[in-house]
């Protein structure tokens, strides 16, 4: 049985924030009497993550995904509830815990800007007490996997965003952590760089059985990496389960675009009881429930003279978009 590596129970986090009314009056009032209020950004969430799992955290901006990651890696203290990551209380930041995890934030970097990445890698190797020869071996292996062998000796400021992100990954993985917290790791990268990064993460997960917790606004990251997603809405979990199930639930129909040889067939199709979405002179798009796709196709192919046919999944972004604004999904 695969053991849990992350256990979260009734976790909450509140921040104190100050508010200010607009205008000069508000400014003066704010100067003399600052009004602060407690804002609960994470509300009694509970979940478990198994060793080797890749879990995607989905949610709109400000939903609380990053705050959850920050608590899981021990960067911030929880206000209530308990977290156990690999048997440790993350916020205590014990050395053996820190050596087991890594956090990568797409918009933040730890590489030394004016020096080549190799200097940062060597520094990290020393911080994590990795033997010189072992560090060399890991840098070689990871730089080959990430295809950045040629960029190791070029100052970070001269690297492209994609090369920098790969270097960030290498710096963050040099100590071979078992748990990766990735906060929008593909932010700002072009399509090819995103794909390469995803491929690398998949390979890293397969080779090391590392657990990966990921947030991303690029749905491709989620769909290609995560079998399980946790949807966060206003600091609470609105869905925790398989991504497939969620997509099926949210998108129970598929669209079939049929290209007919004549307008007559289009009219015949329209009058055959299908749920028509739209039609043109030679084309008609119908909506068919997932469980009756085969029978519907059979009917179409047997009874109509068609030139071509396309089955379209509704755009994934559209489906996920629904998750971001909805509170609960009962699957």
């Amino acid at each position, binding site marked *: 049985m695969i053991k849990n590596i992350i256990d979260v129970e009734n976790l909450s986090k509140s921040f104190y924030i100050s508010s200010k009314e607009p205008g000069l009056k508000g400014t003066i009032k704010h100067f003399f009497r600052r009004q602060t209020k407690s804002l609960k950004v994470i509300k009694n969430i509970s979940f478990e993550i198994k060793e080797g799992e890749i879990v995607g955290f989905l949610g709109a901006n400000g939903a609380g995904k990053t705050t959850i990651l920050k608590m899981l890696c021990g960067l911030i203290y929880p206000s209530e509830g308990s977290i156990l990551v690999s048997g440790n209380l993350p916020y205590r930041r014990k050395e053996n815990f820190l050596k087991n995890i890594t956090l990568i934030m797409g918009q933040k970097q730890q590489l030394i800007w004016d020096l080549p990445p190799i200097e940062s890698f060597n*520094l990290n190797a020393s911080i994590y007490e990795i033997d010189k020869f072992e560090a060399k071996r890991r840098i070689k292996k990871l730089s080959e996997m990430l295809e950045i062998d040629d960029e190791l000796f070029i100052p970070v400021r001269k690297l492209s965003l994609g090369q920098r992100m790969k270097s960030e990954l290498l710096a963050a993985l040099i100590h071979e952590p078992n748990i990766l917290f990735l906060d929008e790791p593909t932010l700002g990268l072009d399509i090819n760089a995103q794909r390469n990064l995803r491929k690398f993460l998949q390979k890293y997960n397969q080779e090391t059985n590392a657990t990966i917790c990921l947030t991303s606004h690029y749905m491709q990251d989620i769909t290609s990496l995560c079998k399980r997603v946790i949807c966060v809405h206003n600091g609470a979990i609105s869905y925790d389960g398989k991504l497939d199930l969620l997509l099926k639930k949210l998108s129970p129909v598929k669209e079939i675009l049929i290209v007919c040889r004549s307008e007559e067939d289009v009219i015949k199709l329209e009058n055959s009881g299908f749920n028509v979405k739209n039609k043109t002179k030679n084309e008609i798009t119908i909506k068919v429930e997932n469980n009756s796709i085969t029978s519907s196709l059979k009917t179409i192919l047997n009874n109509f003279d068609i030139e071509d046919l396309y089955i379209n999944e509704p755009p994934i972004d559209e489906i996920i978009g629904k998750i971001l604004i909805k509170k609960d999904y009962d699957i």
Partner: protein
Amino acid sequence: MISNFNSHKIFTLLKVQYANMLEYRVEIALWAISGIIPFFMLNIWTNNNLNESINISDVMLSRYFLCAFFVRQFSVVWVVFSFEEDSLMGKLSPYLIQPLNPFFRYFAQHVAEQITRLPFALIIAFFFFIFNPESIWIPNLGILFLSTISTFLSFLIQFLIQSIVACLCFWTEKASSIERLLFIPTLFLSGLLAPVASFPKYVKSWVYFTPFPYLIDFPANLLSGNATNVFVGIAIQILWIVFLFPVFRKIWSAGKKKYTAMGS
């Protein structure tokens, strides 16, 4: 902090930070030049014959201000500004989840910068001696050694004071404003503008109970060969460090819990 101490980590940090500092050699040369306040003060003192009032010869006063310049060059601290920026911009986050106290990074940055400053400070001293040949002297090795230690202790005191102030970022966000308040007594009471010996009697009666005279005045007097009680001075510097270090640890430990990882 001490429990995390690992000489290999610190050595690598120093190497990397030194390499980083060398990228900024022009800036460092300019910073070194910008630290010539003591020379302006020397000019004011000698042009107004103020040294007569405290029974210090022109030569000894020149040496004192040159030494004050040197001590300042190798004890200047800016950790509060770096820490504040890193804290507010979220750059602190990756450092906090590494098995090394982030203050070691700042410490290494400072030491690396001091090493980089050395040649520039020596060049400035060279020109100082060209214009003030009567001030040329070579301190004996023992004095040089003790004043190097004293300067390093002065740096540690300032580093700890600023680190304590820097940790207030966890509560106030703009801790550098508090540091600016500390800058005023540091400027006037440390001996940067005038030797503490020249202060009025009532100021002298209490100023030695503060750490300020041990930041510039004591090491500068020691290096320049002015009469000073070497071992008492160094012992007081060590006492200040022994007092400040646990305060820093306490405030760091409390502050970490307040960190909200803003900007990340």
